């Protein structure tokens, strides 16, 4: 579904991600883990087109999308939830959701909204409220709902459980698994909550200092004690 070939990414002249390759299979969860500052977010930003791609390719369903502008990638089927600043606080909940479906016919957007409300009913009660007035958990629900509004083929989530209470984080990871199992989506996940994330994942990559140290089955990474101890704090 999504293939990354020898990707080199950075910002301006700063080279952060070096020669990274992996493939996210259809209807699977691929998780990128690694120490802080390892280039995980930069890699997602490179795939989306908001960081500079120095070389390499990004293929979506076989089509080279490397140098397309971000809004075109979104319209082609990549939904991206950034780690921070992932909602518009000055817009109402309904405006946020409608913007996430911008360009689609209004009837389609309204239908999608009803679908996301079945996942997060609390948002339906907040439609007219400014997003800035939502709680942290509700904001995260809104951000994920916005990512789903275009019904994307690939969903990229950058540390979605960050800042959430443990019970909410656990529930969110269950919902991510449901995206694959029930919605038949392909998920590319960056997550600090390593053990829980790898447990729901099919494949994984360990990214250290911008370089890929491991690419393979998530279970294999989870059971690799040496890598777990050295980089992930997993025993």
């Amino acid at each position, binding site marked *: 579904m999504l293939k990354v070939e020898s990707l080199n990414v950075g910002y*301006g002249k700063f080279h952060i991600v070096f020669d990274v390759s992996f493939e996210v299979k259809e209807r699977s969860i691929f998780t990128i883990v690694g120490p802080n500052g390892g280039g995980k977010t930069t890699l997602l930003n490179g795939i*989306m087109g*908001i960081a500079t791609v120095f070389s390499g390719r990004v293929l979506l369903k076989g089509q080279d999308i490397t140098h397309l*502008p*971000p*809004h075109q990638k*979104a*319209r082609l089927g990549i939904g*991206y939830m*950034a780690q921070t*600043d*992932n*909602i*518009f*606080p*000055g*817009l109402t909940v309904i*405006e946020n959701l*409608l*913007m*996430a*479906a*911008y*360009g689609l016919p*209004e009837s389609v957007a309204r239908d999608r909204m009803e679908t996301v409300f079945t996942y997060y009913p609390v948002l339906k009660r907040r439609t007219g409220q400014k997003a800035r007035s939502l709680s942290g958990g509700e904001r995260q629900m809104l951000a994920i709902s*916005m990512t789903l*509004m*275009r019904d994307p083929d690939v969903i990229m989530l950058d540390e979605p459980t960050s800042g959430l209470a443990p019970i909410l984080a656990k529930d969110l990871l269950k919902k991510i698994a449901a995206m694959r199992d029930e919605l038949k989506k392909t998920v590319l996940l960056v997550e600090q909550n390593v053990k829980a994330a790898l447990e729901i994942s099919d494949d994984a990559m360990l990214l250290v200092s911008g370089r890929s140290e491991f690419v393979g089955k998530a279970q294999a990474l989870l059971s690799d004690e040496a890598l777990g101890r050295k980089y992930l704090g997993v025993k």
Partner: protein
Amino acid sequence: MVLPSFEFLLSSAAAGAALALLSMGVTLTYMTTRVSNFAHATMAITGAVTTLILLDRIFAGFRDSPLYYGLFIVAPIVAALVVGALAVIMYLVAIRPLIRKGTSLIGLMIATLAFDIILNNLLTVVLQLTPAQTVGRLLEANVKGYLVAIYVPLVGYIYPHRLLLPLIALLVAVGLHLFLTRTPFGISMRASIENPQLAKIIGIDIERIYVVSWFLSGATAGMAGSLLAFEMPGISPAAAYLYIVSIFAGSIVGGINSIYGALAGGFLVGSMEAIVPVMLSDLYQLLTGSYVDILRYQRMFSFLLLILVLLVAPEGLAGIKWRGIRRG
């Protein structure tokens, strides 16, 4: 003048309305592309020159016909389209390539200044290429000589443009509010202003939004300039250098990050520049018996207001928590 006449209040409201439109335009391009456009006043003068050319070449022939009043409708629309297109060209040719090259905000500001000087000189050339007789009328004659006043019962004679300017400013304010809150494109513009990166990754083409914002900014400048042409004592491109300071004062008084604030700030600065000097001149005459034309120093008052507002509310009028004030 002990009490201001209706005509005086109307002309002050017209001056305020023109500056409200101009400050709003400067704020709009600043909020979307972070560019302080120093060519904005020259764009308004382009609207004024467009109007004068229409007046001299087309409408002067209908002086004694009701068609003559069509000028007040046709000219602002034509000027809006011409200057709107000019603003888009400026963005596409000069500003966007510089933004893509990573030029600093100061660099972009200087680029608008360069564009301003080029446009200002081009306007002078356009006027010089016009037949000498026309140039004489355009540059030296008082444009009010062309005007026809309309009699309004109980009020007296008024000039149509003085009614049109506040009316257009009000329509623009209401229209803009509906556009920004009720239309998907308007909401996407607010979203792009709030967080351009998020707007991009959820599928909004922010480049299109930038082009539209430059068009709207130019169009409102052209419209304001077109109607201001009737207030100016002869049109000169150099007048832009006086207007630009008032435009920025209005924008900053209102709050540089608020479109509604810019409309309010522009109106306040523009009407104050028209009212306060005249009132002070009259008061001085009443007290001393001699007359001093304080109107020549009118911009001093807008900057006094600017300093006062910034001291009380550093983020301008839009930064004040009005609800809190009302509740005490």
